[in-house]
């Protein structure tokens, strides 16, 4: 069975700083997808970034980028120039290729301080 582990329950950084959220996963699959979702207090899950395991190049979306280390089964999220609106729960997630279930970690609560 696949598992996703987020070892940082909570983090705080000053506005405009860079922060990295850690995620490791366990799978015997070779083909899969990885995601980072943001959940603000409104509860709606919002996709931040996704990565296909077969792609070596790390995904980027504006201020958000990932460090995907397939051999180490690590998938960290870097947020550059953090903004107050980045305050939220962040969930790392995994999905096998051609599957229909996304498996989520327990989340990291991120506070951006003014």
């Amino acid at each position, binding site marked *: 069975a696949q598992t*996703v582990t987020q070892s940082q329950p909570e983090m705080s950084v000053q506005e405009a700083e860079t922060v990295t959220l850690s995620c490791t996963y366990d799978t015997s699959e070779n083909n899969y*997808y990885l995601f980072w979702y943001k959940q603000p207090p*409104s*509860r*709606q*899950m*919002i*996709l931040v970034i*996704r990565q*296909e395991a077969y792609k070596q190049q790390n995904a980027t979306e504006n201020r958000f980028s990932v460090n995907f280390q397939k051999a180490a089964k690590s998938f960290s999220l870097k947020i550059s120039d953090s903004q107050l609106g980045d305050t939220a729960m962040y*969930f790392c*997630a995994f*999905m096998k*290729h*051609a*599957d*229909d*279930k*996304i*498996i*989520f*970690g*327990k*989340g990291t609560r991120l506070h951006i301080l003014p």
Partner: protein
Amino acid sequence: GAGVSQTPSNKVTEKGKYVELRCDPISGHTALYWYRQSLGQGPEFLIYFQGTGAADDSGLPNDRFFAVRPEGSVSTLKIQRTERGDSAVYLCASSLIGINSGANVLTFGAGSRLTVL
């Protein structure tokens, strides 16, 4: 609609009662998913619909939980004989086609918070 709509936003019920939670997906989205998010946890998969049929219900915890999508749009999650352990946020999501195609992403609703006293 513009987004995924879930009602009620909050529901408080007593142990043993029956509840229904409704999800109205984005118009035209054929795939619909239910997830359950307990306090301090990430969402856990419950069931996936492709059109009117449940393509995968392996996440439903027991036979007290049931979901329908009779016309391939709105879905209702039904919980019988509720227990305190059922307290959670129930999230619904939809996608144009199933995410197992790899090309599509989920759009989530804001969830229904269920509290069983």
